[in-house]
């Protein structure tokens, strides 16, 4: 539990740093990580939307898999 919390905080910090550095590829990956770590699908989709958006902008190689994740939950088409 404690260890998990720490990861979440670390991830948040990393996301902020990637935002600041304008590092789109990294940012997409971090959001995807947050999505995969999420405890429920609503939370996961929230993060995955961010991951997918930034991936689209930056042509991240995982864009399609992010899209499919959202599509599976009827959140994107």
């Amino acid at each position, binding site marked *: 539990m404690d260890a998990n919390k720490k990861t979440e905080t670390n991830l948040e910090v990393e996301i902020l740093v990637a935002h600041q550095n304008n590092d789109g590829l990294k940012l997409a990956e971090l959001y995807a990580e947050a999505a995969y770590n999420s405890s429920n699908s609503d939370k996961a989709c929230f993060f995955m939307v961010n991951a997918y958006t930034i991936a*689209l902008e930056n042509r991240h190689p995982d*864009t399609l898999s992010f899209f499919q994740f959202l599509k599976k939950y009827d959140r994107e088409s």
Partner: protein
Amino acid sequence: MEKRAILNRVCLPVEDANGLPNEHYTCPSVFKEEKDILLFNKWSGLAVAAEIPSVGNAVPINFQGTPLFIVRTKENRVRVFQNTCRHRGMILIEQAKSIKGAIRCPYHSWCYSTDGHLISTPHVGGPGRNLHGSIDRSNLGLTEIRSHVWMGVIWINLSDTAPNFEDSMKDLIDRWADFDRPLFHGGSESSFTIEVAANWKLAVENYCESYHLPWVHPGLNTYSRLEDHYHIEHKNIFSGQGTKVYKQLEDKEGNSFPDFPNLNDKWDTAAEYIAVYPNVLLGVHRDHTFAIILIPDGPEKTYEHVHLFYSCKNTSKQLRRENMKLWKNVFEEDVPVVQGMQKGRHAVKFDGGRFSPVMDSPTHCFHYWVASEIQNGRKQKD
């Protein structure tokens, strides 16, 4: 005299005509009228395609108050869009950049493809939901502005009412078919901007005629004399001048720029300089072309963006530099007279002036176009 009568007089044959009255050069409301009728309703020059050389390049351009951007799409096509997001109207592209994937709006991150389709609407149906029944992406693409690339220039028709570019410009495209081929922009040694404190039309008018050459360009006149020039006039589309004695620029070793391939013999010694109405001044020679895009900034200020093009990629940098210097010098020689005509138009009793029936007909051709277009525009408004 009422406005209509004054403009009717401009449209008389050149022997009897007067030039356009002062207000067409100095008055903000006439400037605005001309912006709509002469620039927005026609095919205007916006930029050169060389400004976006690679796929994904995008450059924001404010054209007479309208925010636009030019982009080279994934399919390697030049397209022009309104630079405004379809969501809350945010400006999409603030500065020139290279778009890797999608154009993401900086506000709520709606994403558009480089060909203008709305491809994602993050959280639009609530957190984590990119879909909503009332948001039909197929109707929410970027607003495209009609555009066409010719002679290296991106031309646009903002009003969407002009006939197709190829139809509008057919006679000129045919006339210069020899130059309708890939043109290679000469890079930083081939573009510069001149700022003139004058109405944009005075730059057109000065460009059209050769009458001023002996006095304003004495250097040119030593090899390109007045009697070697001929008028070019095509009612309502373009006018200008040609010369029969173009000599190529040579470096110390006698090298010149390579010719465009398969030119008609006429171009061995001919060169032509044509003002394409409204705002593009073009020049063609056997070994290079140029385009000057006039961008008005209010009634009394104009930016002249000059670009030179060559027949191939690998021309000598040194020679390009020299050629640019030569042209820059010529165009700068014109600045004092163009600005002087602007100043002269603040004299309240100036009547538009009289034309030389022999030397000024290309200029009058332009005045005729302006006056008749404005008359038509006003009639439609009444």
